[in-house]
């Protein structure tokens, strides 16, 4: 009787360990080939002005101002975004597409960065369906070695205000009330900019499956990745 209970508790505890180790541990998918990335591990990253593929003119600045944090916390030096913006503008490069077209050798010469991050924002802002509105920010990014032009990594992420909502309660009236509340909330303040922080974190924070590797300034630099090779 006591033995039976102990066995069950032990099984529960074993399940717990499995969940902790499996669910919360850093995962590196064997399918992603990090060979080029490791061969050209950058210390510093120049983030170019994100190309805006959305109708919202605030997308470039909204996204660009949220990328420094996840990259720096992942262990990289990130070139000061506002100064980079000034340098481009003072040299007649006024659109992100123009900045993105500058040859890597030129970028390396001006900034002295190891790698450049090219970002495309494909969704930024509120969309409205019959019964709801949501704020969504979606972006893709490519990390390119400035010495060789080699593509080191690419990734994508999205974040939406609809994620934590449970629209199944309260029937149609409940859904309409939620939609109205969201519409008011989404139009007050800069929710797209806030959402961009989540997208940026998901896309650029190191240690995620198929994500960026930790950089040299991180205490987790080159940890846990040896096994994936």
């Amino acid at each position, binding site marked *: 009787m006591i033995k039976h*209970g102990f066995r069950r508790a032990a099984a529960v505890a074993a399940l717990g360990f499995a969940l902790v180790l499996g669910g919360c541990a850093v995962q590196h998918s064997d399918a992603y080939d990090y060979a080029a990335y490791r061969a050209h591990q950058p210390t510093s990253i120049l983030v170019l002005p994100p190309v805006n593929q959305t109708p919202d003119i605030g997308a470039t600045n909204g996204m660009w101002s949220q990328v420094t944090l996840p990259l720096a916390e992942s262990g990289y030096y990130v070139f000061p975004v506002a100064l980079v913006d000034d340098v481009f503008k003072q040299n007649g490069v006024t659109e992100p597409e123009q900045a993105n077209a500058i040859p890597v050798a030129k970028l390396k010469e001006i900034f002295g960065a190891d790698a450049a991050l090219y970002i495309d924002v494909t969704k930024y802002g509120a969309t409205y369906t019959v019964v709801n509105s949501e704020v969504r920010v979606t972006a893709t990014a490519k990390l390119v070695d400035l010495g060789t032009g080699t593509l080191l990594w690419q990734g994508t992420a999205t974040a939406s205000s609809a994620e934590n909502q449970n629209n199944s309660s309260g029937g149609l009236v409940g859904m309409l009330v939620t939609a109205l509340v969201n519409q008011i909330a989404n139009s007050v303040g800069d929710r797209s900019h806030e959402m961009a922080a989540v997208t940026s974190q998901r896309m650029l924070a190191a240690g995620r499956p198929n994500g960026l590797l930790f950089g040299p300034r991180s205490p987790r630099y080159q940890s846990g990745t040896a096994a994936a090779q």
Partner: protein
Amino acid sequence: MSAGANRGRGKDRRVAAIGACALIVAVLGGCAQQPRSLYGWGSYQDQVYTYLKGEDSDYARQIEALQRDAEKAKAANLPLPPGYHAQLALLYDKLGQTDNAHSELLAEQAAYPEATSFVTFIQSHSASK
């Protein structure tokens, strides 16, 4: 006989309940092991956003906010993140305080030697203005 069996089942339930609680604590504890922040961010990213939008020309207030947050970071024993000093340099330059701008750029370079080439580039180009 039945009384003894009942007592055994109660013990089973208690042990299983303790096991379940331990499981919950372990999972939450494991998931909660977030690495601590490397830097004291303060309002840095917000200030960058403000500057990029170009709608606010009160650079003195922006400097004030960054300096205040820098004090907080120092008190919390957190280094300032990449670009923080450089942002201050940019704002001082806008106000014509070139000495302050210069020392902030040097501070950026001192904290982040990766920025040396870029700092040199900025200083050589602003000297020619």
